[in-house]
């Protein structure tokens, strides 16, 4: 057989195997290193700090867990959240993340490594990304081979779609969930392929861990049954599938019910019914198989087959019936919003107001996945070529995840692993084909010779076996069997090989550069600290922490702070003060109350504030330095959410100009100008500009002079760049006047006379 380039022939098979193993380990070490290092941009550019919003709550809960122990954490009732309602934290969270950090923290401390709990939390996500790379490697190895696995591991290690949720400091459930997702899937594939109850149980254990860690566990709950169902319908039912699925479902479901937040949901809600239905179906199919093995009548089999279908239909009907009956909860609104992208905006504005719940824009697919998105379909097609049982899984996963990623930006995260796997399969096939030194036969005469040679190479005893083994190392396992019959098709010479391989390597290089760039530019900002570039270089804008720290140090411990729910977790975490609403948006009415207070006039808002014991009101204002994520830009969501509960009092159109524009300058509608949010944002803002025009740098509009005045609240603190403004709610006037006239009196204004002064009568 002709070779495009020579391979060494004097190596023992053991040497080759050991070297390959060593190379794999070294490659894997580098992949882990790259995965962790690329997530440290945030720590290097800023500091070891918890990012954004939800992570602050997770961090706070982890601190409780680390300092007070697990049982205290389990029973934790937090009276400072959702004031005055409070929150049963232990029963309303997925504790997997906190428990993981707690275990790591205690383990390190028992080894006399007193690492700060904050650093454990900050570095948890990068650490787990290395584990994700490993899980993806194992998963892909099942699909194709080790080399595809390594490629997939490298892809998942640095792909921005996953980094966006797992940079250092992004201490959120997704940080560990993607590892659990991939590893559970890997164990499921193993269980299904081997019919191993051990792997099925392991899959159930990791499924339980996933349930404890992330609400997205429902993805696994539906993916595995879907796979089992598809295999059954394809006529691929085997006892291995039966053993794998049954052990996973029985143990996994019972285990998942131990998480308090999940409770009886696995048997009572529609999201979980698919898994139960497939479990029942498999029992029937298995029973039928058993009967068929004893009775061999074709008609009887057909009868049974129709019986199976009837049973399936009956089961479905029973579930539907139970749903109407009320025993099984119907689909939730969040579920509907997955199918109808306009649903949330109409019925649940709180969900729609979160930017990560918006449909994905096309460019973000490229930004998050780069060239993998082009290789992804190729990989899926390659799966069709062999279509082993595990390939069916990849195909289903790819279809389902692609749909969901198109619906919601945040679900890009579940698409990313399968894109990496498919792209790795595709790219690795390209490499297999083009690195393989075997050249096709040129003439018929050589063909016989070559096939003889090939046969001799296939027998392990012969001396030439090393070449065959090496070829096997470089290429994939199954392809060697095909090579037993050399074909006319193939690649000649080194130049064609080089052209394709260099091209592929170039793409990989661009991919790496793109990932580095996206990670450093887009995904590594803590959003608690902002960076601005000026002539001196990088300058940090630290207003959030400044204001939160001021609250923490200079206000009473029980002072209630009202702000929009986005900042609830940060206030609880950094300022340690009770808040009315926070990012756990469980009580729509409470949020709407805050929205109403913000969007009504001072007179209307004041009783609401006093009834809720509010001491301080905190607003975010970006007009001074041009920070666009401020409360005025979020204001319409507050209005909409308030309108949902009080449609008579708050109406969205009133906040627009007659022309239908959303403006803050002198053309703004009176309702807008009198709203608490407007007043708190622009209080004393025009004075900053002296005689000049007071320009709001976010909206590019001029604020009318004089600026708004306040009667019921008083400015308490404003941060250096005016981003955070805190106002104190005045207590009742000690003289019993209403605060408006008391304020007017203090400023020396006379009360307006109700009657015009009596004029001196003319002498005419």
């Amino acid at each position, binding site marked *: 057989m002709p070779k495009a380039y020579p391979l060494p022939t004097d190596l023992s098979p053991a040497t080759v195997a050991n070297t390959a193993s060593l190379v794999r380990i070294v490659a894997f070490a580098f992949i882990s290193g790259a995965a962790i290092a690329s997530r440290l941009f945030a720590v290097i550019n800023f*500091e*070891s*700090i918890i990012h954004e919003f939800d992570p602050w709550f997770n961090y706070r809960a982890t601190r409780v867990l680390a300092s007070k122990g697990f049982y205290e954490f389990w029973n934790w009732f937090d009276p400072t959240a959702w004031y005055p309602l409070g929150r049963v934290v232990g029963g309303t969270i997925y504790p997997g993340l906190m428990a993981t950090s707690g275990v790591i923290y205690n383990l390190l401390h028992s080894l*006399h*490594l*007193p690492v700060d709990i904050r650093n454990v939390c900050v570095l948890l996500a990068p650490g787990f990304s290395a584990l994700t790379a490993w899980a993806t490697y194992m998963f892909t190895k099942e699909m194709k081979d080790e080399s595809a696995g390594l490629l997939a591991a490298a892809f998942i290690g640095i792909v921005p779609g996953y980094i966006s949720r797992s940079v250092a400091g992004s201490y959120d459930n997704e940080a560990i969930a993607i590892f659990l997702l991939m590893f559970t899937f890997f164990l499921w594939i193993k269980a299904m392929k081997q019919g191993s109850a051990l792997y099925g149980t392991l899959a159930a254990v990791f499924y339980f861990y996933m349930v404890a860690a992330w609400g997205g566990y429902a993805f696994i709950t539906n993916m595995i049954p879907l796979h089992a169902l598809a295999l059954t319908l394809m006529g691929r039912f085997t006892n291995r599938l039966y053993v794998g699925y049954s052990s996973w479902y029985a143990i996994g479901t019972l285990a998942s019910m131990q998480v308090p937040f999940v409770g009886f949901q696995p048997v009572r809600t529609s999201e979980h019914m698919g898994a139960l239905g497939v479990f029942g179906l498999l029992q029937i199919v298995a029973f039928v198989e058993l009967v068929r093995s004893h009775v061999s009548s074709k008609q009887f089999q057909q009868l049974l087959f129709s019986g199976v279908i009837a049973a399936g239909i009956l089961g479905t009907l029973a579930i539907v019936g139970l749903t109407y009956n009320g025993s099984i909860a119907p689909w939730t609104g969040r579920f509907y919003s997955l199918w109808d992208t306009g649903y949330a905006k109409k019925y649940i504005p709180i969900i729609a107001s979160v930017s990560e719940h918006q449909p994905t824009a096309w460019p973000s697919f490229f930004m998050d996945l780069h060239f993998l998105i082009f290789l992804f379909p190729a990989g899926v097609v390659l799966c069709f070529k062999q279509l082993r049982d595990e390939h069916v899984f990849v195909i289903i996963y790819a279809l389902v995840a692609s749909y969901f990623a198109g619906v919601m930006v945040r679900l890009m995260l579940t698409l990313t692993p399968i894109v990496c796997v498919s792209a790795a399969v595709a790219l690795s096939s390209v490499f297999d084909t083009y690195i393989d030194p075997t050249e096709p036969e040129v003439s018929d005469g050589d063909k016989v010779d070559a096939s003889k040679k090939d046969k001799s190479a296939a027998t392990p005893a012969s001396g030439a076996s090393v070449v065959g083994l090496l070829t096997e190392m470089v290429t994939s396992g199954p392809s060697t069997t095909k090579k037993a019959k050399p074909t006319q098709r193939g690649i000649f010479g080194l130049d064609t090989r080089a052209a394709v391989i260099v091209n592929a390597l170039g793409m990989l290089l661009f991919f790496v550069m793109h990932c580095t760039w996206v990670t450093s530019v887009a995904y590594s900002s803590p959003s608690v600290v902002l960076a601005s570039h000026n002539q001196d270089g990088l300058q*940090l804008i*630290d207003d959030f*922490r*400044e*204001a*939160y*720290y*001021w609250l*923490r*140090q*200079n206000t009473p411990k029980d002072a209630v702070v009202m702000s929009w729910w986005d900042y609830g977790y940060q206030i609880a975490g*950094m300022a340690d003060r009770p808040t009315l609403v926070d990012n756990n948006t469980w009580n729509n009415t409470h949020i709407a109350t805050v929205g109403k207070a913000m969007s009504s006039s001072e007179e209307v808002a004041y009783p609401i504030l006093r009834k809720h014991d509010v001491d301080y009101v905190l607003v975010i204002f970006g007009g001074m330095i041009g920070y666009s994520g401020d409360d005025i830009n979020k204001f319409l969501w507050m209005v909409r959410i308030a309108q949902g509960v009080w449609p008579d009092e708050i109406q969205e159109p009133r906040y627009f100009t007659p022309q239908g524009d959303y403006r803050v300058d002198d053309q703004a509608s009176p309702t807008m100008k009198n709203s608490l949010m407007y007043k708190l944002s622009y209080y*004393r803002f025009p*004075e*900053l500009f002296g005689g000049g025009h007071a320009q709001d740098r976010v909206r590019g509009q001029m604020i009318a002079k004089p600026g708004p005045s306040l009667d019921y609240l*008083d*400015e*308490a*603190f*404003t*941060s*250096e760049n*005016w981003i955070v403004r805190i106002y*104190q709610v005045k207590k009742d006037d000690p003289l019993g006047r209403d605060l408006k006239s008391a304020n007017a009196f203090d400023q020396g204004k006379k009360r307006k006379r109700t009657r015009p002064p009596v004029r001196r009568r003319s002498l005419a």
Partner: protein
Amino acid sequence: MTPSLGLRGWLRLPVLALASLSWSFVSATSHSFENTAIVRTVDLGGSLVHVTTTYAIRALDNGAQQYLVTLGEKEAHSTSWFEAKLKGQNEPLTIATRPLIPHDGTYAYIVDLPKPLGVNGTVNLVVESVLTHTTYPWPEKASQKDEQSLKYEGDLLVLSPYRTATQRIKVRAPAPRIISYTTPKGLDAFTTDNVATKSSATITYGPFSNIPPSASTAFIEEHQKHIVVHYYFEHPVVEITSLKRTAEISHWGANLNIQNDIDLHNAGPALKGHFARIEHQSQSYFNRLAPHIIPSLTFHLPPGIHSAYYYDLNGNVSTSRLRLTPSIPKAAQMKQYSTLELRPRYPLLGGWNYTFTLGWDSPLADSAGYDASTGLYVVSVPVQTVIPGAVVNQAEVKIILPEGATDIGVFPPFSPLAQERSTHITYLDTIGRPSVALSFENLTDKHNGLIYVTYKVPLSAHLQKPKAVSIAFGVLFLVAFLARRVDLSLSK
């Protein structure tokens, strides 16, 4: 070393009973001197008031050597630092008896004169002391634009167990703008002139002449006067409510890490109304910040430090500047500092608090020595990093020695309130490091001495860490080795 005491701490000690017994012995010496003149100067400040009293002494007996300096009860409680010298000399005199001896409404220090005086021998004794917590803001609240004025309250006459021919008390304000001061009445027995005269920034009380021995309750009740001086103060009143300093000595890292957990409080007038950023910005722009606002603090850190860090409960604070100075040789006399201009997250207005952590690493060689003959290491750790004019209400200095250190000796520059030994466990420790915690109160800018610690570290203790690490890795490799080689599967 400079003797100095926080009195309140001493009062807690049971030694007091003993001390009062010894008073009879002390009082025997009390008629052996006469004060020909006493001049006291009270330098008013913010948190601290510096008092300098010069006693011109004449001996009445032969061989008199122990001179008693007495303080009134209130003064004794607020005195946090006390030092006596002979005029024109730099060496402080030893103060024989400690703790303070309470008697008849006064407290006394016994100052040992360097040599006994003959009859009619004279000497000039200069006593310096620092008072804390004797001023308070008045009015108690000030708005962001207002000026800051403080009131000083204290006793007028210098008490002494000896007859005093003449005494004079000067109260010096930092600026000539004094709002009001007390002119005490009922001192006609000692003076005929004006009791108080003010010239520029100084108020002079007296001279008062022919004062009998005054260290007694009877005299205090009859003649001691209470004075109040109300004055403008143009610097912020800085108070550190709590300072926790940890000094960790590492031989393997050749490093001395010093970390301070500081609770800062602006003890000036509380902010009236609310903080308006716009006012603050315009004041800073025109450089006319009200005197009670602390926008930043300047720390003099030791030379040669590196890896300084400044963070608070919310993470790193990036608003500060540090100018480093390289290490200077140990014997060098010149004073050089690394200067840290530290800005809190927000300007500290009256009554506001700010808690933060400030730390740095420095080469151990800069502050350590080794005595080869005894095998003792000596390390010096400063008690505090002084902020001029600030008082530290509570301080705890914890010195963590290397793992396995033995024969530990601690030599503080002045007596601590309490001293405690414990074990501190940190990275790669197996048995933990011995640590010594010293607690102090009311530290002032005069309390800038060094704590010396001596200890021995045997070679086996030095090798403890590599031993532990290599054993840990050995076990790890062994486990991996076994896991790889031992086949546990049932079927072959």
